[in-house]
């Protein structure tokens, strides 16, 4: 039963990916008859005849000279057969795939460390607050979370970059470009990455720490009120055994669910943070692409970010299945 649920879940993710893929293909085509107009908008000092020629060239270069369904099929076959997401507008016409691959690890460094930091610290704080329910530790978390949820991560990042970066000079307020250009797998190099990543990671993790802490606290308190915890206590189990084997194991379930949901926001929000610290990641690449109307590049990044989210949600769902023996076909979602 469980196996068929997992297979269904994976197939559904593939289906969602195809829908996203199709949307991705059509978004640049919204509102224009000819995608060439989107790729190369008319310039003021251009005559109609000149523009026609330019459109013709654009069509040829980006394969718009065939019918739209044909273009769609070409898009799919390029993507799946050659891993080709198109050609960027940048000088030298680099492949979108290459540009992205250059930035991908740098973005992942930020996302993964933010996620880990947020989860570990957040869950720890949440468990402590739940244990000290109603006491100052708990009240502090509650107050911190009411304030933190109203502070956007990018504002925290700005404040950190100002006070910790510019004023206190604890960490670099802008990423040192040498970090990327001189990167090697040496200890010094890794230390430099950590040093430069500190502020972006902390400012992104700040909000998620509080969020996960609050979520963990509520989940732990909810589970503590369950009958089976009373059973565990009536068995004379030690408080630590109850906490780790009974309470936390069950409290993880809602946390895992919310984790899947929060990942999409985390990935999207990173765009702004990368911009503030001038981080050499996909977020800054995306904004550069947006500023130059580099659609192939923009849509390529969008596709990859969506794929990440789909995989992340799928993974959290599968973790959920592992943690909760009750899940069978169609029970979740």
């Amino acid at each position: 039963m469980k196996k068929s649920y997992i297979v269904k879940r994976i197939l559904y993710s593939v289906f969602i990916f195809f829908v996203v893929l199709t949307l991705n293909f059509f978004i640049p085509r919204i509102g224009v008859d000819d995608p060439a107009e989107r790729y190369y908008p008319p310039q003021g000092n251009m005559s109609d005849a000149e523009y026609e020629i330019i459109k013709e060239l654009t069509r040829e270069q980006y394969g718009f000279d065939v019918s739209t369904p044909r273009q769609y099929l070409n898009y799919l076959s390029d993507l799946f057969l050659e891993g080709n997401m198109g050609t960027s507008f940048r000088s030298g016409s680099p492949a979108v795939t290459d540009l992205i691959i250059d930035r991908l690890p740098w973005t992942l460094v930020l996302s993964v460390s933010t996620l880990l930091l947020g989860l570990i610290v957040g869950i720890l704080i949440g468990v402590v607050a739940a244990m000290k329910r109603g006491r100052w530790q708990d009240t502090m978390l509650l107050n911190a979370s009411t304030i933190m949820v109203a502070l956007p991560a990018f504002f925290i990042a700005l404040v950190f970059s100002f006070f910790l970066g510019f004023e206190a000079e604890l960490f670099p307020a802008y990423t040192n470009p040498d970090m990327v250009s001189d990167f090697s797998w040496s200890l010094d190099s890794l230390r430099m990455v950590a040093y430069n990543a500190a502020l972006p990671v902390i400012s992104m993790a700040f909000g998620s720490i509080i969020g996960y802490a609050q979520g963990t606290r509520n989940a732990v308190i909810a589970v503590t009120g369950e009958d089976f915890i009373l059973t565990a206590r009536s068995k004379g189990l030690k408080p630590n055994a109850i906490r780790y084997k009974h309470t936390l194991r069950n409290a993880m379930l809602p946390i895992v669910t919310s984790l899947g949901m929060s990942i999409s926001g985390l990935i999207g929000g990173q765009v702004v943070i990368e911009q503030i610290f001038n981080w050499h990641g996909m977020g800054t690449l995306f904004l550069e692409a947006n500023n130059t109307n580099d659609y192939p590049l923009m849509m390529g990044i969008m596709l990859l970010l969506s794929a990440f989210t789909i995989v992340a949600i799928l993974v959290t769902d599968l973790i959920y299945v592992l943690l909760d023996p009750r899940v069978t076909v169609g029970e979740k979602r």
Partner: protein
Amino acid sequence: MNREQTNENMLAVRNLKVVFPMAHGVIRAVEGVDLDIKKGESVALVGESGCGKSVTSKSLMKLLDTPPALMRVDDITLDGESLKDYSEKKMQDIRGRHMSMIFQDAMTSLNPVMTCGRQIDEMYMRHQGMDKKEARKHTIRALELVGVPEPKSRARNFPHELSGGMRQRVLLAMAFACMPKLIIADEPTTALDVTIQAQVLDVLRDMQRTHGVSLLLITHDLSVVSNIAETVYVMYSGKIVEKAPMKELFRTPYHPYSEGLLKSVPKLSDEGKQFVQIPGSVPHPMKKPSGCYFHPRCPYATEECRQSMPPLEKRGEDRLVRCFHPLKHDAKEAKTA
């Protein structure tokens, strides 16, 4: 309070009180309850829901949390050992080892993400210092004893994979695992179908008798009581209103409330007779009436009942009743009933 504590008592509780302070007042859940359970005896605590019987059962094991509950007791002794001043840590060694509990709803009382076997293993590992393998051997035996077929594979099942009756048996096996001195069963069969109910009760009674374990059965269901209990305490709105040997209570209830409870149980022999219900409901624990708590629902209430609370008085051998006007039964009626 007024009875000698003999050393044949397995459990003796003196003057147990539990309150719940709330924003709008204090809920008086248990108001000075005395309980005595002899060794190997099975005692039932009977009352409608909301009368404080579940709170009593939890407070015996000191399982109530403060907050929200506040508990006071003159003494709790288990097999001559006074638990009154035991710390939480010491209570942890008592729970499961010497005193264990069976809860009402096995579905919610078992950890949903842990196998049933594992949850019983925990008892042996905690109280008898066994390792996992040894504990599992004992678990399988324990499951066998309570009549679980194929105990080896059932032990590997999660609670949701078992039927309601099987789940309840798992709870029984868990409670009997360390052969405690006392088992408190809080509505152990209420969540089950009637046929399954009878099976589970049989297992409970057999286990209790063969192993000489004392049993405190908390229930609202008098048919369950007649199956198992030797002595019955009737509780109403936080106070004991009557204590009697089971057969005598069924034959000659002294308290009007006990009478009402008995009348509301349909019997086969009652065919055609009117099915009687006690009018009204248990008073709100924050707004208890003056005098005898039962007087608003009592057909025999007098001015005296409205004014003051009757004491719990001895009336005949081994019987107590809290009523100014206990019911009178002539000898003839008592015999034929």
